[in-house]
Each structure stands twice: as C-alpha cells, then as structure tokens.
C-alpha cells in the first residue's frame, strides 16, 4: 500500500527485482496501473494487480485485502508506506486537514494492520511492515501533529509484534528520517537526509532479518537516541 510514490515505489522495486509476487493497493487506479507495469518490467513474478484502498475509508479494507488474497493466491506480507503529510502550519489552522491526516496515518493504518495480522495469523503467519517516523520518537514544536500520528502508529506496531509473533506474524516498524521524496519536496533539507533507494534497501534487508524496528538512514538511530534523552528544559530553549 503506497507503492506508487517515494519510498514505497523504491521498496516495491526491490521486492520486484528479487522476484516477489506483488499486488498494489491505493487510491489512484491510473497511477497504480503505471506502477504495476513498472514492477512487472523490473522482474515481479507474474502480473501485478491492483485494487482500491483509501486509508481514510476503513470500510473498504476487507474488500481490498480479499482482492489481494485472490490475486496472490496467498497473501503473506503487507507493506504500508502510504500516509498523509502536511506542514505543521497547514495542520494547525485547518482542523479538517488535521482530522484527515490523523485518521489515515493512525486510525486507518492501525485498522489495516490489525485486520491483516488476524488474516496472516489464521493461516500460520506472515509479515507486516509499516512506516512510523523519527518525528514520532520525540515531539517537536514544528512537527508534533504529524509526529503524533506516527508515534501512535509506532506504539501499535510495537504491540502488534509482541502479540502476534507467537502466531507467526512478524511486524516491522520503519522509522525514516528526512528522505528526499515528493512528500518532503519544498522543505529545507536537513543534514543526514536520505535517498529513497538507500532507505528501501535497508527496509528490505530488515524485513528479511526479522527485526521489529529499523531506522533509515541508519544514522537516525543514534540521532534519535540522543534526542530522546535531551531534557525538556533543553527542548524548550532550543528551536527544536
């Protein structure tokens, strides 16, 4: 889910190149179709199908997952890179936009992952990979609304991994730092910015290694370790 753009596009390509069978979920059928053809040309096993899924409309999730199940013969992994993003100033003054973002990034994604976990557990296991963010590790005055949606999701993924691992379902929470994609276009580029391809390689490696959490680029693990330990008084004083 989210394979048409940014990190999702790069992750899907890595999976296609190693010969995985893929099925795409998303909102724009024309865009999904373009990405499906791209992934087929890059080596995906068999035709790449797609179905409608909007993270803001959880009612449609069972239908979309059924379609994926049918097309893949047996769905064994879900990767969710899709989500909404907006600058803090846009969210702070526009309640409707904020509600849509919280609904998609938290409620929608949690519902999707939970339903999928049940499906996978019922047939003996599988993998769920979804995207939190370093923005969820510690609130920033400039990004706490988006960060909160990702912090909530990360907490859910953390618990999901604990709860379902015994039933064969592994859950990976990816926490990207700043990555140069269409999502972050126009934002000032901070140090340690990553590229989608490098992030995708790291994510796919972490999927194979059975990890429950991965920072990408990797340096963000160290950065966030420090930032999480900063005393609140420091955060108040510096423009963080």
């Amino acid at each position, binding site marked *: 889910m989210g394979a048409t753009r940014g990190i999702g596009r790069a992750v899907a390509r890595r999976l296609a190149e190693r010969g995985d069978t893929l099925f795409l979920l998303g909102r724009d059928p024309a865009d999904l179709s373009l990405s499906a053809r*791209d992934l087929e040309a*890059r080596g995906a096993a068999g035709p790449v199908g797609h179905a409608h899924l909007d993270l803001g409309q959880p009612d449609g999730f069972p239908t979309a997952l059924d379609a994926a199940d049918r097309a893949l013969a047996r769905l064994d992994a879900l990767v969710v890179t899709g989500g909404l993003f907006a600058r803090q100033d846009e969210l702070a003054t526009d309640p409707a936009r904020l509600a849509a973002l919280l609904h998609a990034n938290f409620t929608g994604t949690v519902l999707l992952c939970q339903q999928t976990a049940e499906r996978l557990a019922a047939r003996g296991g599988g993998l769920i990979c979804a995207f939190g963010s370093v923005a969820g590790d510690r609130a920033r005055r400039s990004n706490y609304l988006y960060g909160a949606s990702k912090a909530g999701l990360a907490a859910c993924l953390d618990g999901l991994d604990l709860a379902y691992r015994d039933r064969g379902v592994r859950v990976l929470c990816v926490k990207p730092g700043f990555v140069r994609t269409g999502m972050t276009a126009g934002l000032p580029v901070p140090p340690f910015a990553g590229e989608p391809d490098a992030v995708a390689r790291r994510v796919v490696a972490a999927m194979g290694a059975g990890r429950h959490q991965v920072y990408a680029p990797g340096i963000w693990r160290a950065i966030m370790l420090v930032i999480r330990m900063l005393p609140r008084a420091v955060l108040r004083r510096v423009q963080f």
Partner: protein
Amino acid sequence: MEPLSAFALEEVTGWGRYPVRPGRVQRPERLDVPAGEEPLVPRGLGRAYGDAALPYTPGGLVVESTRADRIRSFDAATGRLHCEAGLSLAEILRVFVPRGWFPPVTPGTKFVTVGACVACDVHGKNHHRDGSFGRFVERLTLRTADGRLVECGPDREHELFRATVGGMGLTGLILDVTLRLKPIESPWMVLETQGMPSLDAMLEGLRLSAAHWPYTVGWIDCLARGAQLGRGILMRGRHATQVEAGSRPAPRSRRVDVPFDGPGWLLNPLFMRWFNQLYAWSHGTALKRRLVSHDTFFYPLDAVGRWNRLYGRRGLLQYQCVLPRAAGPRPIAILLERLAAAGAASFLAVIKDCGPASDAYLSFPMEGTTLALDLPNRGAVTEALIHDLNATVVEHGGRIYLAKDAVTRAEDFARMMPGLPEWRAVRDRWDPNRRFRSAQSVRVLGDPA
C-alpha cells in the same frame, strides 16, 4: 502522501557549477507541465555542464524529471523499452544488463535521464558506427506549450521529432520515450589501449580502428607541444562474447565521493604535467588488451561521485566542438596549440571521430572529429579562450555542443548551426511564446529574456 505546495528557492547549476541561478525546482512523480503561463526549463540529472537546464529568470521554474522514472513496458524479444523521461541510463544498466541488454548509445556518464539523452541527442564512443541517441528513438510523448499531449517519432509529427531530438527540451516537455536497447552477450568489455605519439597517429589510429571496433575514443595530453602535440592514448572496445567473459561474475560498480571542493593547487600546471607524464608513462606505445567492466570502459569518471568539485568553487567550463572531416587535421592542431599556449588550461582532452550527422536540426555530431576538454573556470580569461576557440571552429565549418556550453555567443552559434532557422520555424509553430525557455536559450538561441 500529499505533496507540498510551497517550493523553496534552490541554487540551480550545471555539472560545471558555472553559472549558478536561483530557481524553484519541481520534482513531480508524475511528470507534467504545471498549470499557468510561467516559463519553465526542463531538467534531468543536471549533467549538462553549462546553463542548458538553468532558468533564465532568477527564481524561475525548473521541472526536474528524475522522479518520473517508471518503465512502461519492455519487450524482451526486441529490446523495445518504453519508459518515462526521468529514467536514468544508470537504472537501465542496473536492470537490463543482467538480462543481456545495453543502451544503444551512451555518453560518458550514466547519470543522465533518457529524456536528456533525447534533448541533447547524446553521442558516445560508437558514433562512427551507430550515430547519436535519436536514431534509436521510436516514439516520444510531449506536453507542448498549448497543453496538448503530442506523440512524435520518425514516422509521426516528423518535424516536431526532428526539432525535439537535440532540441534541448525547448519544444515541449518530454514525458516518455520509446527506444530500442541492443543485445549484449556479457556485461564485460574487451578493451584495447595503445599510446599514440602524435596527433596524426591518433587520427589515423581512430580511423583504422573505426572499421573493426564499435567503440573508439582517444585521450589527448593537452600539455604536450611541438612534435608531441596531440599525443595520447587510443582506446577501442567491444562487448565481450560469452566465451571471452567465461565464468567471470558480473562486475560490481564501486563509487567514492568527493565530499568537498578541491583546493586551488590541485589543478595547477605542475600537478597536471606530472599527472600527464604519469599517464603517458603508464601506457607507453605498446598495445594492451584486457577485459574491463562496462563501468570502467564507459564511465571512468562516474566512479568518483561529484568529481566536478575537484575544480573548486569556481567550477569548470567544458568545451566540446566537432570539425568536419573535410577540414582535415589542421584545425584540431590549431585548437590544441591554442590550449597548450594558454598554459594548463586543460590537461586532458577527449578526441573521437564522428559518423554522419543525423537529420535533427540542432543535433551536435557531424562527420568529422570531435574534441572535448575541461577548462578550470578562471573567469574572463577562460571565456576569452572559448571565444577564440569558437572563431577557429566557425572558420572551419564546425560547431559546439550545447550540452557542454556556458559562454558561446548567439552570433557564433548561428554561424555554426545551419539548421537553426528551420528549428526556430518549428518552434514558432509549437511554442510561439517560448514557454520552454532556459538561461542557455536566452543566451544563445535568441529567446526573449
């Protein structure tokens, strides 16, 4: 994910890092012309050296294609590839070399987009045999200035096609490209190198090699003078057969990076002389033959990421011209003498014989000899040198390559390019108001500021 609406100003520059213009760069994942009337300049990976992909107006709109990089289809029986304009040759190589396919024409870097390969009608070491990139393009989809989606090719909207191949992105935004890849038996190259003691030997070596080798090129020591003028190394190659490659594993590309600007002393005359001596000494005039990776053969400089930083903050001016075969070796010798006299202006020149010109109006290559060199940017002195070289090129019926150019005068370019009036006429039909406009098109092609 919802893209943001605001676009911060960025410093936009070419690979030579001169000139620099602030611009608003859009990098859409679905490439298209933004709504409105504002002039824009199309851009790929920014490997053009000069001002070809820079906005003329400070803060002007730049549409970068690099995120529009999806493959639409690939026919494994014929090698026909339909892709979005932002797909890079590096990505094509990564995906298709293991399957036995190679770009039909490649410039000296793989970090170029397919759209830019069309817009610059790039050429490579196989020009003497295969011609330039446009020859392998079957279809282009353009978003033209009037908002129409237009397909063109050798058999459809041929005028627009001839104006778009080599047209520097100024006839419309190239959205997707259909081209033919060529089959290869292995990812390895057979490379032969031989020292050439003089310019005549080099030209003769290129001529003799052309008959039997699909890829040829020469590197010339620009500091050598007198009888040694034009000495250098001749390189010729071909894709290795399965038998030659044997059980060798596929080559892996390595990359190092230049993380900061080079110090001024790095390219000083003594260093360059030493570098060239070393280079000549390492080769001698003996013929050497070995197997190398296609990265080593085609893209030696790509192994050093951001190597342009070695030229320091002022950047470099690259100069590339082609002189017609009929003019003989004399003008090449004149150019090399000028360079040597100018003192360490350049330490290495690339020389290559070109085959027949294409029918694209602004396509650079023509039957003859092309010379390409890097000139550290020393401001007015370097610009004067380029105008001086241009005078020789004009006098002998040659031309310069827009993808490398940052300083050529409009009147000089008009004298070099006989197809320019026809190209303008096609452009008048498709983009009368010059919606597609670059710093270069204002400087050298007569677009309004």
